[in-house]
């Protein structure tokens, strides 16, 4: 009888075992252990795209908080928001500290998933940061939901030998004066194109120019149900069309291997958009043997903010207290902000760090120029940043779409470009938005 019962149970048990073996273990909760009164310990999860950066910061962080372990999870910046959404929807492991890259930040902030960092228990004081950077930290309700880690007053990187040959100078101030506005830049570009027989161009591709124009544009584009895109595209497309028709822009697509290789090309392209992070992460990375070949000057019209990474805390994060410990350390303390400067190569957004001006740090690679000091002193004061919008990604996508017409349809007019942009914007934006 017992044997029969066991036989009857055997098959269902086997089936159950097979199912259970296919089910993985659930995520472990990170323990928060108080080892001593007031001493914080535990583990925080940071999703980021640069392991070396997080490891470098973790090492510095652990000098102050030795018992808080940082767990790095690699997530590409392009896929960051979609991976966050997937984790939120499926209940997967969420980061405690979230990185908010400027490209998707508007869309990120439109989601009501962030902690208000000025509210308790964080009580952040926004006045400690440079006022120029505040628009990149605010959501549509004016709440700070991310702290911009770095200030990015940006300008132009240039190849010194080509600048000397075609502009007659490699001095940053003199060069900046020659291209102080877009009309001047275009006039110089035309001259250079003619002199070189079309071989030497100012920029490698239209996207380089668009990146500067997009970041420089200070007027509000999106408000409530209005999209002021006609003026935006008229301004930007006019400059790009004139530049391309003047033969001063190449055909390389930004961030492709061909574009990266153009940095070591000694003959063809002179200027590139340049943020404080560009010398380390772009110029030196693409031209490792280029010592002495490069300089940094100001952009036409004014400085602009190019790129940026902020730290935020999700409402559903497990270890908000420890996450805030890290963020507060990294963005508001002497030790943390100096670590960011050293590890990331960033100009930090905390004003107190530069109360006595930006320290000089001559870089042999840039022929002795102190690039960050130069950008702080020459690009910051004029820098204007418009407020973030979830539709900023649409602006960029439609700009890419329309730029292709500049390449492929010789003789296209500005009116046709703007109309194409309006049609695409109408297709992409919500139906209840009015396009002006």
């Amino acid at each position, binding site marked *: 009888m017992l044997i029969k019962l066991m036989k009857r149970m055997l098959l269902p048990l086997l089936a159950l075992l097979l199912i259970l073996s296919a089910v993985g273990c659930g995520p472990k909760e990170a323990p928060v252990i108080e080892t001593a009164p007031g001493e914080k310990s535990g583990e925080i999860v940071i999703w980021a795209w640069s392991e070396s950066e997080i490891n470098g910061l973790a090492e510095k962080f652990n000098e102050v908080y030795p018992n808080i372990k940082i767990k790095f999870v690699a997530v590409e910046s392009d896929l960051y928001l979609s991976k966050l959404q997937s984790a939120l*929807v499926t209940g997967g492991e969420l980061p405690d500290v979230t990185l908010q890259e400027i*490209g998707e930040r508007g869309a990120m902030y439109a989601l009501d998933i962030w902690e208000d960092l000025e509210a308790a228990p964080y009580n952040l004081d926004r006045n400690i940061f440079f006022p120029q950077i505040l628009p990149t930290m605010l959501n549509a309700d004016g709440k700070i939901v991310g702290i911009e880690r770095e200030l990015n007053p940006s300008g132009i990187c240039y190849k010194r030998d080509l600048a000397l040959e075609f502009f007659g100078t490699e001095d940053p101030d003199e060069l900046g004066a020659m291209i102080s506005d877009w009309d001047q830049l275009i006039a110089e570009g035309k001259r250079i194109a003619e002199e070189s027989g079309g071989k030497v161009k100012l920029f490698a591709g239209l996207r380089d120019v668009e990146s500067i124009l997009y970041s420089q544009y200070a007027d509000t584009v999106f408000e409530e149900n209005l999209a002021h895109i006609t003026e935006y595209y008229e301004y930007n497309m006019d400059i790009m069309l004139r530049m391309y028709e003047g033969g001063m822009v190449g055909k390389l697509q930004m961030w492709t291997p061909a574009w990266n290789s153009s940095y070591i090309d000694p003959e063809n392209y002179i200027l590139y958009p340049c943020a404080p992070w560009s010398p380390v992460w772009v110029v030196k990375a693409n031209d490792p043997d280029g010592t002495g070949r490069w300089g940094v000057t100001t952009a036409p019209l004014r400085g602009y903010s190019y790129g940026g990474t902020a730290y935020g805390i999700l409402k559903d994060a497990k270890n908000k207290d420890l996450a805030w410990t890290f963020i507060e350390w990294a963005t508001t303390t002497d030790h943390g902000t100096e670590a960011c400067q050293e590890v990331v190569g960033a100009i930090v957004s905390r004003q107190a760090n530069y109360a006595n001006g930006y320290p000089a740090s001559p870089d042999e690679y840039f022929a002795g120029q102190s690039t960050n000091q130069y950008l702080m002193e020459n690009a910051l004061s004029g820098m204007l940043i418009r407020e973030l919008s*979830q539709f900023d990604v*649409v602006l960029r996508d439609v700009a*890419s*779409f329309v730029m292709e017409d500049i390449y*492929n349809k010789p003789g296209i007019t500005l009116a046709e470009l703007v109309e194409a942009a309006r049609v695409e914007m109408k*297709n992409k934006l919500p139906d209840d938005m009015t396009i002006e």
Partner: protein
Amino acid sequence: MEKPSALSKIKKASSLEKANRAGLFFVLPFLIIFAIFNLYPVLHSLRLSFYSWDGISPMKPVGFANYVRLVTADPYFFKSIGNTLYLLILYLPLTVLLALLLASLLNNKIVPKKHFFQTAWFLPYIVAPVSIGLLFRVLFDWSTGAVNGILVKIGLLHEGLNWLGDPKLTPLVLAILLIWSDLGYVTTLFLAGMTNISSEILEAAEVDGANYLQTLFKIIVPLLKPVIVFVTITGTIACLQLYDAANILVNPGMMAGTVGGPGRSVLTGIWYMVDTSRGGSTGRPEMGYAAAITYGLFFVTALFSILNFKLISSKEENYE
């Protein structure tokens, strides 16, 4: 022969029932996993298509509004279908023809080292689509790509073509990518079909004076109809599901490209669905609408598959 008694019938039925129960317990794990990881997501996404949802906020029921929008007010959905049709026309007939020719060559006794060539032709099929997309992006780059370099050098072009930036050319590049990637696999299928053809038929054709091409197109191809049907239907489905290779081909990342490539000429249905669900180029994730796009694609795929099947089968019936 003695008729089975009632008792033996009952015993037989009982042992069958036991055997059935035993079989059921063994397929139960698969059924449960299938129900959880396949059936439930399908039904959930169908339900989701009747809601408006950004993935975070509460779901809002909208009835058939998503489907109405899909059919009446969405230019990109039909653009993606049109792009796929165009891609199919470029990719499928050429792939089938080249694969047939290759398979017949590999099936020929005079070709030496057949296995080496068969393996070599098959290798691109096992390369990840992302890698292939990256490779083709480098090869077809406007300024520095090898393709333009070679064509200019041999005098076929005066200056390089904007392969990946011209809406007329980018679909061609994508079609070439797909042909290069799938040719080996389709050749293998045809080769398998050819080896099953009786040699007597081929010998009879030879005796009757048929040449190589006549044998290929009038005897071998009709006998390979089931394989052609399979290749056509799966090729159509693959085109409708295309995403990775197309995305990598035209988008270098860092938000530097256009969703769907130049003029959205290589925007596929799946790419459009992914972009809509994430809000990558719209700034607002729309998971409910993305689910509706998925079902729209499902109906289109089913329609294409049925049409393909009926078209080729009716030709088969006429032939018979």
